[in-house]
């Protein structure tokens, strides 16, 4: 149980960056570049408070040791429904809080130099803080509605930040694409949420899990809802088939790519699956879907990264691929491994982006083939990137090794041999493409003037990079599996673990460390690095020859398996056609009907106008006839008499009248 003061501290974690957002959005023009100090102050306090939450949940702070949980009513409809905003911090959320606020702090420090002189500097910081606030709010969410609220808000921030340089049409279109593609996933997530709500009457994760266990919802409807939630995660985490937005999102400023499109927002999909793990495990179909989508995405994105010339896109595809790993881990039941990889990945992938940003800052180019020989000119960046690359490749004892090995090994242990093969192949390609990028950028001779004149970035940029590089080495050491024989306990697994319910439902054995599997994955990764060395350092001509010999394959990979072209030719074109068709229908049929009514009224009026001859006797005749008709209608039962009388009177009147 927490005191009110502690609850306030927890609430301040997302509230402070939100406050900073409002301050900067309103007074940004006055603050100009000093906006960064306000922002950094805010996020530093958030980080401290997040650390407090972590210590509290870990039981180091007195009174702690249990998940933090409290909520306030947001929309209260009494018996009709109740939606609350609240906080639920267990080990998973606590780790995420620290990761998010730490990476956010690093990025905000780094951006001070990277974005210097930008015309919308303060606005950039404002949105970064709105993002941080939303991401923290998402992590804290105890129910689907709160999660959805912040889920959309991080999407909005991604939209604004990718489109930060909106004068460039490519940035503008990339921002739009990112938002729309993720929103398709969001709509699916939303439908999943309302299915849960309609069947269980609650949106809280724990309630839904319990309701499903006791049979309030089950069968195909339950599976559908779980898969719809997963589709939301797929959209956010850029998994197949919604991965197309992430590479384009690299149009945003590089610090944004590091924060949003590497460490935090794209991991939200993985976080969602982990957060709702108790629900997912109840549907074996959904779990298999998660595993296979993850495994396939990991492999597919890795192949796409092999040939990219743009350094940021290599890293972007790498992110898609690594997120696939995390999904794979969760899907096969290795909850801790998946989250552990998320945690390690946040550091080394953010570092990779910051290194790319450092190069871009130095020579204003994204193209790997315009770089070369940067090792001597940018030593800090070089070594940071090598560390990150080794970590990404999963080389012992860098952080990536521990989590990646855990996932790969459990795929084997759980007898998913196909997934195991895909994961291993991905390990090989991952090591190859990242070292291809490193060798192209840093070794050999400078290929352009820009590369010759490049210099190391200022300390405010290299500082965060060095910190992250340190973490990329050691962050994995908190999760060293007991089987290795090193007398350091597996803190991570003790802290972030699936619920007992999930463990018993999945019925998996305690993962044990296997030296053989670890050795295989490290050797495969080293082979990848070796191949990259062979092709890009030892015999650079060979790479070009290969590319031209297999030009169709090269093109296929470079175009990202033609997914963009496929979607453009089908969905986009269909939507455009439908829009045109409906608009035509609206103009011609509905508009035509409206003018038809108008014309009909005018026409009828024209006909009736003829009756108004102006002759007074015509009018009198109408009156008389109308009276007769009314008389016939009213006196229908006397019809014969009436008609007879009329005939008689008319005849008589005719006889007399003609003589008048």
């Amino acid at each position, binding site marked *: 149980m927490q005191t009110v003061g502690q609850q306030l501290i927890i609430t301040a974690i997302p509230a402070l960056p939100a406050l900073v957002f409002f301050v900067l959005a309103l007074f940004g023009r006055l603050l100009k570049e000093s906006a960064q100090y306000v922002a950094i102050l805010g996020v530093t306090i958030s980080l401290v408070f997040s650390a407090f939450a972590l210590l509290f949940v870990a039981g180091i702070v007195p009174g702690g040791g249990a998940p933090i949980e409290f909520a306030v009513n947001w929309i209260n409809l009494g018996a009709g429904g109740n939606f609350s905003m609240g906080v639920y911090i267990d080990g998973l959320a606590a780790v995420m809080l620290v990761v998010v606020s730490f990476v956010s702090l690093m990025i905000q420090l780094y951006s001070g130099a990277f974005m210097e002189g930008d015309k919308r500097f303060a606005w950039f910081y404002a949105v970064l803080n709105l993002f941080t606030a939303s991401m923290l709010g998402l992590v804290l969410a105890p129910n689907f509605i709160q999660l959805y609220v912040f889920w959309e808000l991080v999407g909005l921030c991604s939209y604004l930040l990718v489109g930060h340089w909106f004068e460039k049409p490519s940035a503008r279109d990339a921002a739009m694409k990112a938002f729309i593609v993720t929103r398709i996933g969001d709509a699916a997530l939303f439908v999943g949420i309302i299915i849960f709500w309609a069947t269980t009457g609650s949106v809280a994760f724990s309630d839904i899990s319990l309701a499903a266990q006791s049979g309030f919802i089950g069968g195909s409807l339950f599976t559908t809802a779980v898969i719809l939630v997963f589709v939301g995660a797929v959209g956010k985490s850029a998994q197949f088939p919604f991965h197309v937005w992430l590479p384009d999102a690299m149009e945003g400023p590089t610090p944004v790519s590091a924060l949003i499109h590497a460490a935090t927002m794209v991991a939200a999909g993985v976080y969602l699956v982990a957060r709702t793990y108790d629900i997912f495990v109840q549907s074996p179909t959904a779990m298999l879907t998660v595993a296979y989508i993850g495994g396939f995405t990991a492999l597919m994105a890795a192949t796409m990264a092999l040939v990219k010339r743009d350094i940021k896109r290599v890293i972007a595809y790498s992110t898609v691929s690594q997120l696939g790993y995390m999904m794979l881990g969760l899907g096969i039941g290795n909850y801790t491994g998946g989250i552990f990889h998320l945690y390690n990945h946040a550091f080394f992938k953010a570092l990779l982006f910051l290194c790319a940003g450092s190069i871009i800052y130095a020579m204003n180019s994204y193209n790997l083939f315009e770089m070369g020989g940067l090792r001597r000119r940018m030593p800090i960046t070089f070594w940071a990137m090598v560390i990150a690359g080794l970590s990404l490749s999963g080389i012992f004892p860098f952080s990536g090794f521990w989590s990646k090995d855990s996932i790969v090994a459990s795929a084997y242990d759980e007898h998913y041999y196909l997934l195991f093969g895909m994961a291993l192949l991905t390990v090989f390609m991952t090591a190859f493409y990242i070292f291809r990028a490193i060798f192209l950028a840093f070794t050999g001779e400078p290929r352009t003037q820009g590369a010759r004149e490049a210099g190391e970035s200022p300390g405010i940029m290299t500082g965060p990079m060095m910190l992250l590089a340190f973490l990329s080495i050691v962050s994995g050491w908190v999760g060293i599996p007991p089987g290795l024989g090193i007398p350091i306990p597996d803190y991570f697994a003790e802290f972030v673990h699936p619920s007992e319910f999930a463990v018993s439902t999945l019925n998996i054995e305690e993962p044990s460390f296997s030296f053989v599997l670890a050795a295989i994955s490290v050797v495969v990764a080293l082979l990848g690095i070796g191949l990259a060395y062979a092709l890009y350092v030892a015999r650079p001509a060979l790479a070009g020859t290969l590319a031209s010999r297999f030009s169709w394959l090269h093109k296929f990979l470079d175009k990202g398996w033609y997914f963009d072209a496929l979607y453009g030719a089908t969905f986009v074109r269909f939507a455009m056609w439908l829009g045109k068709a409906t608009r035509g229908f609206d103009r011609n049929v509905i508009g035509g009907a409206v003018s038809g009514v108008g014309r009909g009224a005018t026409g009828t009026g024209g006909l*009736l*106008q*003829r*009756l*108004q*001859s*102006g*002759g*007074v*006797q015509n009018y*009198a*005749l109408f009156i*008389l006839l109308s009276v007769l008709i009314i008389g016939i209608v009213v006196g229908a039962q006397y019809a014969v008499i009436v008609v007879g*009388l009329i005939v008689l*009177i*008319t005849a*008589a*009147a*005719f006889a*007399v*009248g003609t003589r*008048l």
Partner: protein
Amino acid sequence: MPGVPAQVQQFIDALVSAPPLEGYLVVGAFLFAIGAWGALIRRNAVVIFMCVELMINGVNLTLVAFADYLPGAGGLGVSYAVLVIAIAAAEIAVGLAIVLAVFRSRRTVNVDEVTSMRG
């Protein structure tokens, strides 16, 4: 009255006794129909007015006849008839004034030529 055949006596009785209601109604209807017919086919505005008068009087006759036939109505029909006569007088006054005005401006009282209200 002796010496008169029974049939003739009956006929005379019928002649001198109060006529039945139907008689009045038929006469009223005839008056109305003649008036209506005239109002529809005559072109002279003054004749039309006379025909309208015929219609009005046909109605008046009906009203008075019913007033006699239905004593329970308390003579309401007669008072209506008086009202109608008064209105008819007023109508003639206004109507003839209009006819005069039309004649002054157009030198005709032929209603077929007065069609300025054509829609």
